[in-house]
């Protein structure tokens, strides 16, 4: 049975939805606030839509602390988040974050336990959101991408869904998320086990896919006469 068929079967089971009830409550209420505040819009780079039943690694740029909440609201699936050290340790905050689907991963060590948890979430048919640049880049520009995304997607055998998200469109700082076409790493590397060189090449490919989404985002806002309050394209010109 294919993974997506298995996922379909699992999703028919009401127990699965009961299990996610604590995660869905904040998602619903925070989602309502986000929908009113940012009026987020979802646009697709092409007519090809992501598989509704397969797990996937969602990779996005990270220009604002609200990005995970906006994407969690606007993408039509329950999302788990790779939350770095924020969702590690003990305490009410950690419990709350984990309840909302955050997975803690220690970026200072080779956190194989965190990677295993993340891979299992995707194998079970869920979306996992990560910001492969590793940290916040306020201008929204895509710079160095880390190889961890490739390792996780390869291990899980799920497709990668690139997204470019940015809020701050004129008119109440509306947010727009541009979703690229999902793709499998195996389409670009047919080895059973990629070498470190293959991983570096696949990481460069992720950056290209994210740049495609970035270009599509700006093409979309230009085509729809939307303006960004702080347009990074203008800032780029000023810097040069």
């Amino acid at each position, binding site marked *: 049975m294919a993974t997506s068929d298995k996922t379909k079967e699992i999703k028919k089971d009401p127990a699965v939805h009961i299990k996610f009830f604590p995660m869905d409550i904040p998602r619903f209420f925070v989602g309502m606030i986000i929908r009113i505040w940012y009026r987020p819009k979802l646009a697709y780079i092409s007519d090809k839509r992501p598989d509704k039943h397969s797990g996937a690694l969602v990779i996005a740029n990270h220009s604002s602390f609200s990005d995970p909440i906006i994407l969690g609201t606007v993408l039509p699936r329950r999302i788990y988040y790779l939350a770095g050290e924020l969702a590690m340790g003990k305490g009410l905050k950690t419990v709350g974050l984990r309840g909302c689907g955050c997975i803690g991963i220690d970026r200072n*060590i*080779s*956190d*194989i336990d965190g990677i295993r948890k993340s891979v299992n979430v995707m194998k079970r048919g869920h979306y996992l959101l990560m910001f492969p640049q590793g940290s916040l880049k306020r201008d929204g520009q895509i710079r160095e991408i880390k*190889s*961890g995304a490739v*390792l996780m997607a390869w291990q899980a055998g799920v497709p990668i869904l690139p997204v470019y998200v940015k809020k701050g469109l004129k008119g109440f700082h509306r947010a727009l998320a541009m979703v690229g076409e999902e793709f499998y790493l195996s389409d670009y590397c047919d080895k059973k086990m990629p070498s*470190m060189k293959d991983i570096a090449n696949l990481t460069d490919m992720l950056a290209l896919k994210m740049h495609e989404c970035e270009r599509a985002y700006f093409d979309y806002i230009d085509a729809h006469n939307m303006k960004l309050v702080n347009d990074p394209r203008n800032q780029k010109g000023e810097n040069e």
Partner: protein
Amino acid sequence: MSTLERLKKLLSDVYDGEMDTSGITEDSELVKDIGMKSIAMLYMAMAIEGEFGVNLTNEDLPKMRTVGDIVKMIDERM
């Protein structure tokens, strides 16, 4: 094939045959002699799990200083 030989084959695959594994012994240090960086260590750990069917944890990785440490760890768990 011994665990060391299988590990050397795995290292060769990870580095796409670019690494001369003939000089690797159990005393070879992963960082100093082989030149492994953190991402390579992580990938190697994942590859070991797949190849040998053993489970590695965050506590195991810092203990993996030499090739011999990995061989010992694998042999104990297989």
